[in-house]
């Protein structure tokens, strides 16, 4: 497990992800203001380096006089929470089905394969919108929606890998050695697919950040009382002329977070010698 650390991408990605985690976990200490604290006389202040900027508001304030930098930090919490739990959830659901389908084959595989077909005929954005319509807003529902939409990503990619592995003679040999099906899967197939799983998981985290931002942007994401980058973008759009940073800062934060996960995933893919998986494939 040391080998990946020699990849510059992995290190860069890890650093960014760590930075995001520090921001998320340390937001209460790092933030200079209460992120919800409004100041109706200090709205749309410029950033510190701009004319009229003030050290009190590093990145200026938004349309309600809230500190953009502090909101950015707190926004990382939802982003990281959703990225972590949603992708893990999707991985658990998708991978379990992939192992079952790929190993057992037959009608089980057929049913799961058709389920994937049905899911794949829905563009993810549309499906998550519809799900959120049904589920209602809130971080928990965003996570649920992402799990319900993106399990197919894991299932599709892993299922192919499981089928390849399951056809290896050493899997047959394990059965012939007297192992049960469950032990065979756990012993021979799961370890072979872990690098792929980790890679897809990492890339999925980036996707989850984007999906959460998209949903919050159209107002179907987290609750309005929660601080999310997507909402900051939606808010910042109204004042793009007065305070462009209120829009650009969350855009940059999303980009950085996604880039972190992508660099990490990409680096892992290379150093763990996983076959090609593309970001949104």
């Amino acid at each position, binding site marked *: 497990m040391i080998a990946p650390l020699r990849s510059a991408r992995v290190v860069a990605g890890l650093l960014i992800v760590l930075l995001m985690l520090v921001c998320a976990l340390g937001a209460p200490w790092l933030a200079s203001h209460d992120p*919800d*604290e*409004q100041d*109706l*006389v200090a*709205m*749309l202040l*410029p*950033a510190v380096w*701009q*004319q009229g900027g003030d050290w009190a508001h590093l990145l200026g304030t938004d*349309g*309600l*006089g809230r500190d953009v930098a502090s909101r950015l930090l707190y926004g990382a919490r939802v982003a990281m929470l959703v990225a972590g739990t949603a992708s893990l959830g999707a991985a658990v659901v998708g991978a379990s089905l992939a192992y079952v389908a790929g190993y057992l084959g037959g009608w089980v595989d057929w049913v799961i394969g058709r389920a994937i077909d049905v899911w794949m005929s829905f563009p993810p954005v549309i499906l998550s919108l519809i799900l959120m319509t049904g589920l209602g*807003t809130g971080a928990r529902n965003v996570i649920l929606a992402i799990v319900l939409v993106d399990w197919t990503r894991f299932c599709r990619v892993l299922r192919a890998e499981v089928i390849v592995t399951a056809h290896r003679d050493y899997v047959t040999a394990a059965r012939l050695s007297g192992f049960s099906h469950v032990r065979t899967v756990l012993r021979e197939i799961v370890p072979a697919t872990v690098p792929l799983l980790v890679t897809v998981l990492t890339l999925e985290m980036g996707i989850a950040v984007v999906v959460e931002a998209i949903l919050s942007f159209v*107002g179907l994401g987290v*609750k*309005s*009382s929660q601080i999310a980058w997507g909402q900051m973008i939606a808010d910042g*759009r*109204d*004042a*793009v*002329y*007065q305070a*462009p*940073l209120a829009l*650009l800062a969350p855009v940059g934060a999303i980009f950085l977070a996604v880039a972190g996960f992508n660099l990490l995933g990409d680096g892992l893919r290379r150093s763990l010698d996983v076959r090609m998986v593309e970001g949104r494939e």
Partner: protein
Amino acid sequence: MVEVSRRHVLQAAAIAPLARGVPVWAAEPDGVTIGWPSDVTSWDPNQRFTPDAHAIMKAVFDQPLDQDAKLKLSPGLITKWDMAADAKSLTLDFRDDVLFHDGSKMTAADFRWTFFERIKAGHKVDIAQSMRKVTDIEVVSPTRAIMRFDSPAPTVPVWLAFLGSFLVPKAYMEKVGVEEFARKPVGTGPYKLVEHQMNARIVLERNEAYWGPKPKMKRVTIEIIKDPSARVAAVQSGQVDITINVPVRELTRLKALPGLATDLTPVTKVILLQVRNDEGFADQNIRLAAHHAIDKKALSAAFYAGAAVPLAVLGVPGSPGYLDDYKFDFDPERARALLAKSGYSMDKPAKIRMASTNGQFPSDYDIARAIVQMWKKVGIEADLEVIEYAKYFELNRGNKLPETTLYTFDNATGDPEIYTGYLLNPKLPFSPWKDMNFGQKVIDQFNVADETARIAGWRALNREASEMGAAMPLLQSVLTVVRKKGLAVVPYGNGWILPQAMAWG
């Protein structure tokens, strides 16, 4: 770097339309392009009450009755109306010089079709509700009709000037059917619909055969731009000549740009919090605390450049029901004290739910969020939910509105009856306040005949409503307009921006 780009924006704004291979967006001298925040969902004007589309409807169709500048009923297609003493019949005289866009003549038969036959034929029209009491419309001659009611209906003339009351041609509609009519409407209004591309554009052309004053603009293009920042960009780049409902804070910036003018007009619309009389707001102390905790002046300053007048009662300054001498103070201390009386504090906040629209009127969502913060500081924790305007009635009908909802109410007439009488009438769909003690007083007030007593009664009820926390009026709404300097618009007190009232000066 951002500073540089902003300066660049300003410079570029001036030259953009001239330079580069960008299509030229400047309008023709007798045409105008309007950036409009909402689309017309259906061209059947009777179908639905849509305040947003009312101005556009008024360009294509005419109402039987109109309102003058002082918002009093005035002749429209109807020249004379005469309500019987028992208020069970209404005699109407029509103009005889009105042509529909297809060239056919408008007669009383069209009136009967619109307000009676359509409803009986089962067309899904909202005016069916306002014309519920109509038993028949008797066509005496092409220019005279008599409406008959099953019970006294003194408000029918008002309804004839209300949303959704537009005259449609019987012959044409019967020929093409409702669906087709909704696509290719024919009215009597000053403009004809030339083209409508959903969610994008409406193109109107002057009706040269119009019976009334001829509009100045030959061609009116309405660009549907729902996003406020996009509307700002559009007017700034010259894509549109005029737009409305832009965030007030943009006005200051846009005013400074060469070639642009801005208007900020107070209108008859009130911004208020509608409240329930139960659940988290069952306790009057909490309601009053919530009201006292809101710094209306700060809201006005922050979101309406101070132009929106803070209100103490339901009504706008200058309207008969308004109480100039009554104040409802911004007093967080008092709010805290009231909450303490009911056992709540910052540490143990009272919990309520709140709803707001987002984009229905300028800065609505921001105001809601600002209020949530103001409440937080006194010990009220509000869970804010965004709803669509259309959902308000549905939720209210099911008694599912939260404790409080940020709401605007447009009263083009300014009459107190249509403020408090509507907003706090438990029998009408507007009010989540279902308490019949106060509600009965409101309903009874409708029957007061004497004008002085009527106004006095409403004023008393206005005061009572505020004092008991049944209503939380916030601000008088303002209309924001950004237009090219050369474009003149006649201002309407109720905020209408009518194409027929525009001219290049």
